[in-house]
């Protein structure tokens, strides 16, 4: 009972530090606080289903094993625990997505054959990723700064970030040349860096 109250008032950073020392109750609390958000990140990239759940499972096992490698400060900058957790889930989701794409490329194309995995990505059209970028920009107070970027720059960045699409896939989805998409995304990232720094969010 007292344990729960103690865990409730503790920061995510402190819970991860205790998980690193082998405290499984603290790890369970980390899961309780973060799994819905992290599952959202995986679902966004892989679609709702077994693949996203597998990624979530692998991610938390990895978080448990590598909790000791979390650093709250790197290069003089504070690293939020959530940042660290999101990066782990996103990397695993991207790996799973690329593996799925490779598997599909190796299969013989059969006309009219719809892969179950496709259903969700078809259900996530481009405006949705763009909408998420707009919402995030507003929440971070960088919408004014980011709106200086041309719409196609922002859209390509949004597709790459929220859908986990590769350069080629973004180009195909936007019907734009690959070279342009690469340049748009690079420019979009540079702008994002500048906007966040100006807002004092991340250096």
């Amino acid at each position, binding site marked *: 009972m007292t344990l729960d109250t103690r865990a409730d008032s503790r920061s995510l950073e402190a819970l991860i530090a205790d998980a690193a020392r082998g405290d499984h109750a603290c790890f369970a609390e980390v899961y309780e606080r973060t799994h819905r958000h992290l599952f959202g990140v995986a679902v966004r990239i892989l679609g709702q289903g077994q693949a996203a759940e597998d990624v979530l499972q692998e991610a938390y096992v990895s978080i448990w094993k590598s909790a000791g490698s979390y650093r709250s400060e790197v290069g003089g*900058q504070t690293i939020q625990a959530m940042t660290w957790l999101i990066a782990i889930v996103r990397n695993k989701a991207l790996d799973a997505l690329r593996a799925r794409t490779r598997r599909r490329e190796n299969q013989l194309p059969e006309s009219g054959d719809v892969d179950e995995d496709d259903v969700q990505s078809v259900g996530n059209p481009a405006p949705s990723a763009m909408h998420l970028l707009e919402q995030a920009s507003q929440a971070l107070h960088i919408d004014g700064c980011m709106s200086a970027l041309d719409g196609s720059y922002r859209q390509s960045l949004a597709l790459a970030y929220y859908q986990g699409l590769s350069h080629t896939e973004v180009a195909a989805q936007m019907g734009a040349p690959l070279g342009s998409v690469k340049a748009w995304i690079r420019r979009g990232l540079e702008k994002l860096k500048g906007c966040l720094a100006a807002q004092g969010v*991340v250096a």
Partner: protein
Amino acid sequence: MRYVQPELLEHLASSYVLGTLTGGARRRFERLQRDRADVRVLVTQWESRLGQLAVSVPVHQPSPRVWAAIAARTQPARPQRAAQAKAGRLGWLKPAGFGFGGLAAGVMVATVLFVTAPGLFMSSDQIAMRTGEKLPQSYVGLLTDAQGNGKLLVSSLRHGRTMTVKVIGPITPPAGGTLVLWAVPASGPAFALGPVPTSGSAVSMLPDTSEKLLSKVGKLVVTLETDAAPAAPSGPVVFSGNCAKLW
């Protein structure tokens, strides 16, 4: 390919975190990250930036099966599991089918080899480090308060460009000002090495390799400064200690 250009590294780090760096380039960058602390810092910074964008991603509830599976793989062995393990202790000796028993036997053979003939896997320096006969070549400082209580452990690999500051004794965060770590060379002015965390540990980039910066430094001090980026120490010395070379 040599990864020295800062713009190239910045571009690779941002593409890696975004996910647009794919295939062989992604794997090469992952290897580079393992070897270079400065590259890890860049990646962490991009993870911080792009992680902010996840704020708008809608939350989803996974099936309860997910936690059950995670718990099963992470919880320390329970008594009943220990009993099961005991009952099947000799199972791996059975040659038939191998399966898990084969895997376990393989791991054991590898472990035995690793312990008895580590030279197959590691260089002699690595073996010496692993067995505790030797520490990696580095600069190390132990800083104490005026009463001699250990407060900070500062370390940097000999040719590394990062410095780790680990808090080893409780530090009360200063009410005003910031704690700054300084290197004091035998001759010449003191120069700032970086900020000091008040808990946990912090990794910061050095402007040059520690070999070049610290080879003539005998002393490290932490002062309480009002200016966030002071050019020279002006505040009171809070902790101090010697800087030693481990060769």
